[in-house]
């Protein structure tokens, strides 16, 4: 009882990346709390969904499989989640900050009179001392998010109400399989007694959803490579770093021209413009045409063998050295220090 729950979003039989990222975070928080990680999957024809979800370290997977649930609908999905949460009384419930999670989350929180924090960028476990009431709350979920147009970072807690609910955007947390052979229990939810006709008062009459494409512009972290990366082989290191940090890979025109990366990843005047929280320029000299596509990044790290590369003038951190040396060090340092 009082476990940590993750709501899994499913599109075309595939669990969304944001849900897998939350399972990864959920696994580590559950371990820290000494509770189980449970997941909820709602949809239709979910026969192989467990294979996608359990390896993330899920102890219990609740599945609601019904033809009427093939696409997300507020009322039936909320009814199932409310019913499950009323029975299981989770201490924490996490959802993606997507059009689904941001539709479902507040509905559930309002029904359960529980607190919900939107768009968290970090989740941690910690204590809280209420000095007025002379009371110490142990192992609360710290829900950390930017507020006020990103000018402040607030830590939000829900001392008294359960579940403590939070949504997180895609790409903010890393995604990592916990154990491919993990053993989890599957519990099928009987939706018949839960759903009523009134839950289907809103119906979808048309739907046009594009297949997932790379989304460099929406990524908070961009690892971009230039001519100086040297080879397509070396570019793999950039993908590795982007994967670890939860970012996307971009490239300069010179790198695209050399065939190191696809054209759709080109950043700059003739490519796309990005404004990420962190831009890591690897082997990019920083010609004006490239800078035009990234100079509004909140923070820039430059990795270059030339200490006088023009990009260093706009970088917050400049590291002199080769990509093949520096990136493994960054990955190692991140893995050692991230929670």
């Amino acid at each position, binding site marked *: 009882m009082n476990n940590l729950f993750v709501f899994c979003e499913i599109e075309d039989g595939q669990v969304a990346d944001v849900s897998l990222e939350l399972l990864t975070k959920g696994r580590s928080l559950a371990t820290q709390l000494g509770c189980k990680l449970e997941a909820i999957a709602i949809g239709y024809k979910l026969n192989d969904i467990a294979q996608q979800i359990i390896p993330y370290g899920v102890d219990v997977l609740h599945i609601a499989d019904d033809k009427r649930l093939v*696409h997300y609908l*507020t009322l039936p999905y909320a009814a199932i989640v409310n019913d499950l949460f009323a029975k299981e009384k989770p201490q924490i419930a996490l959802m993606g900050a*997507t*059009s689904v999670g941001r*539709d479902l*989350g*507040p*509905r559930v*929180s*309002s*029904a359960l009179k529980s*607190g*919900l*924090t*939107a*768009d968290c*960028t970090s989740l941690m476990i910690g204590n809280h001392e209420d000095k007025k009431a002379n009371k110490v709350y142990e192992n609360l979920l*710290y*829900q*950390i998010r930017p507020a*006020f*147009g990103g*000018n*402040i*970072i*607030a*830590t*939000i*807690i*829900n001392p*008294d*109400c359960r579940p403590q609910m939070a949504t997180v955007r895609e790409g903010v947390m*890393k995604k990592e399989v916990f154990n491919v052979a993990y053993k989890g229990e599957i519990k099928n939810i009987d939706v018949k007694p839960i759903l009523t006709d009134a839950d289907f*008062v*809103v*119906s*979808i*009459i*048309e*739907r*046009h*959803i*594009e297949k*997932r*494409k790379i989304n460099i512009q929406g990524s908070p972290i961009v690892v971009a490579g230039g001519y100086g990366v040297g080879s397509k082989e070396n570019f793999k290191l950039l993908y590795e770093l982007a994967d670890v*940090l939860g970012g996307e890979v971009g490239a300069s025109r010179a790198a695209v021209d050399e065939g190191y990366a696809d054209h759709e990843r080109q950043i700059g005047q003739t490519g796309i413009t990005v404004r990420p929280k*962190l831009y890591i320029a690897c082997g990019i000299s920083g010609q004006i045409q490239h800078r035009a596509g990234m100079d509004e990044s909140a*923070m820039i790290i430059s990795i270059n063998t030339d200490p006088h590369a023009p990009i260093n003038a*706009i970088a*917050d*951190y*400049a*590291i002199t*050295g080769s990509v093949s040396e520096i990136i493994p*060090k960054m990955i*190692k*340092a*991140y893995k*050692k*220090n991230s929670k």
Partner: protein
Amino acid sequence: MSGLKIVVLAKQVPDTRNVGKDAMKADGTVNRAVLEAIFNPEDLNALEQALELKDRVPGTTVTVLTMGPGRAAEIIREGLYRGADNGFLLTDRAFAGSDTLATSYAISKAIEKIGAFDVIIAGRQAIDGDTAQVGPQVAEKLNLPQVTYAEEILNVKGNEITIKRRLERGIEIVKAKMPLVITVTSSAPDCRPRNAKHTMKFKHAKTVSEMQDATEDYLQLYNSRPYLQIPELSVIDVQADLVQLGLTGSPTKVKNIENVVLQAKESMTIGNNDQEIEAMMVELIKNHTIG
């Protein structure tokens, strides 16, 4: 078909889109005084959808409901200038410190008080919090269906309404029955500007509190033109339970606030060795640049 009764939920917000250097005080708190108070942008998109329905369905009335301090009456006036029929200011000290759940409770009580309606339209989210929670939370409290991320109301027929939703990677067209709650995204059409006739008509619209400072002549004006009175609703008026309002009614608490220091750009040279690279990564984790 007889007209629809529409309630538009609108919020007055500090303009966080153009935050200058003086927006934060030295102690790390927000200096609200220097931030302009504006009509929340997506609530204007919502107002436009309501006014379009009014154009399409004769006899429709549009009511603007806002919750906030006395100065939020400005939002009601702005709504009236653009074509709304009337408005209510939900205002009480007891609302101070409300999170989204307590806010949605207060708003749902006010809507119950205002009376019968067919459609409640709100912006998807407000720019001071970006939570997108109040719309769905109000819908749940009123036990109504919701359609979020609405971009366009395609059709209204009888009690059926067809709505186009704009999602991350595409669109969805849904059919729903009224009454319901709709939240509108910024990709919906912009709100029409002020209408000269309405602006003249409602120029002197004021709340009771604002009227108390008015001169004799105005009082006469308000008596002869009751539509110039913007009703104020208090906790008692909407029969709300105090325990569910303000800080006590808010399950979420702010534990800590950190000011994001906007430093002048200065390049820092990092040596090509494990220690310095690790120190940089730790710094980036600490200031939430990487998770």
